[in-house]
């Protein structure tokens, strides 16, 4: 069974069907791209996976070590506990908190010490907080952010905020990482860096990654498979080369240059 199996997933907002009958299977360890024109329903798909929206119909099944879990309709924090973590298209960091706190908050779900240790600062508290801190800094190191750990998230440059969001998502120890346009607003140089980082964390954390992206160079370069959405429907899926040559995809992008990307 695939790690994530999405079956006939549909989400309607009143008269608008943002995601329509989408079926997809993600194998463990894959890096899969999701592309499509603006308003195609990509972010809505992520919102369905992560419990922000409840599906109108269809199912989202996660295979966690042989135990199959239905994710559709779960609360976001339970989805995160089950092993999905995400970033947001419109960065949603805890802006007025430090870089370090942003990451530490994402580690909270795995905290071992109990409330009494928090109130009375038993040794458990100090020990775990110390290892938590070290772990957080290690994560920040990957994104070259550890020297900024005490800065407020809002004071980071845009590109670093995107990186911090990925670091924060990783801090929840996910099996599947969902990235919603991680390269949006980055210059080609930053995008190249990001591409490398994504590949590196994928190896290092043995992640399965789902990636929404408009930047075709990034998608075509690192994704093993691509799904294409248009008006909520899945119009194509396959290897990058196949997608490039797909007529429907070229039409959907209305002359946007997919074939030469």
């Amino acid at each position, binding site marked *: 069974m695939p790690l994530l199996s999405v079956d006939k997933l549909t989400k309607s907002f009143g008269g608008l069907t943002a995601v329509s009958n989408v079926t997809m299977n993600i194998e463990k360890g894959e890096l899969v791209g999701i592309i499509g024109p603006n308003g195609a329903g990509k972010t809505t798909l992520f919102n369905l996976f992560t419990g922000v929206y409840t599906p109108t119909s269809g199912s989202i099944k996660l295979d966690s070590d042989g135990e199959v879990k239905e994710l559709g309709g779960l609360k976001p*924090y339970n989805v995160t506990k089950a092993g999905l*973590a995400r970033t947001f298209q419109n960065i949603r960091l*805890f802006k007025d908190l430090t870089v370090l706190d942003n990451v530490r908050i*994402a580690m909270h779900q795995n905290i071992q010490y109990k409330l009494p240790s928090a109130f009375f600062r038993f040794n458990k508290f100090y020990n775990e907080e110390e290892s938590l801190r070290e772990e957080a800094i290690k994560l920040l190191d990957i994104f070259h952010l550890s020297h900024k750990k005490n800065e407020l998230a809002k004071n980071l440059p845009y590109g670093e905020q995107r990186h911090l969001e990925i670091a924060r998502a990783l801090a929840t120890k996910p099996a599947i990482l969902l990235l919603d346009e991680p390269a949006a607003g980055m210059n080609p140089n930053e995008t190249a860096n990001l591409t490398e980082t994504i590949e590196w964390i994928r190896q290092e954390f043995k992640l399965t990654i789902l990636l929404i992206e408009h930047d075709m160079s990034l998608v075509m370069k690192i994704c093993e498979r691509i799904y294409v959405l248009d008006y909520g429907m899945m119009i194509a899926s396959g290897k990058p080369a196949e997608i490039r040559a797909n007529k429907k995809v070229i039409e959907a992008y209305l002359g946007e240059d997919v074939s030469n990307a």
Partner: protein
Amino acid sequence: MKALTKKNLLILGAILLTFTVVQGLISVGIINKFYEITIAMICINIILAVSLNLVTGFTGQFSLGHAGFMSIGAYFGAVINLQMESTGGFLLGIFAGALAATLVGILIGIPTLRLKGDYLAIATLGMAEIIRVVFLNLDITNGAAGLSGIPRYTNWLWLCFFTVATVLLINNFIKSSYGRACISIREDEIAAESMGINTTKYKVMAFAIGAFFAGIAGALHSSYFYFIRPDIFGFLKSIDILIIVVLGGMGSITGSILAAILLAVLTTYLQAFTAVRMIIYALLLVVIMIFRPQGIMGTKEISDLFKSKKKDERIG
């Protein structure tokens, strides 16, 4: 014991010194009965403000019902203390009151904390009104006339003990992973949920902890002022507490402490000018809010002001 750091020993020393000096001044009569009331007011208001700050300032849940929890503590404390006139009865009353307030906090928090902003404010206001009406109509609380002749066990020792305990415990909570979970709710609820924080659970937790300490403040109040009536704990009392929190800075514990002291001192000195008292008081609030809308401390603590920017903050 990792808690025995230099900083913590310093704080402990400062607390013991303050306690001893004030106790000494009370014994020799330099602090007379009149000023003793101010001190009691300061301590009780610090407990109330710091606990409300946890809910409103740190977790971002706007509550207008804190006096309701205070009244539960006050009545439990009074009823028990009237039955058991001893320090044991006094302490039992405090803990029973605090636990009862916590329980009510949880029961009321679960449905109301789903609401946001103005709606939550109105719901908590309504909750406090219901609590008030219940006390108004019970026999054991003696209705509108209230309870009187409550034995006085609240003294400087207990005030100091419970104030310090409240500040330390709430500070420890906020600087733990649980506290960070609460703060993340204030910052961005959707992001918090997506990072694995059960926001409803932590809102209710903050609300319950806030209620617990408000209950303690209430019991200390009834055992200091001899008598209580339901209308002492009305809407205006909740507003009074909120003013301290806003004035001190939402999200600053030391801010709440400073503001509680400032307002109590002000009230004491303005007592001589009864007629203009409320006007001066209100004007001062307006002026401070115009020139410093984030409150005296904003979200900073006094210790942050002495911290060099480069230096790494220690665990917490």
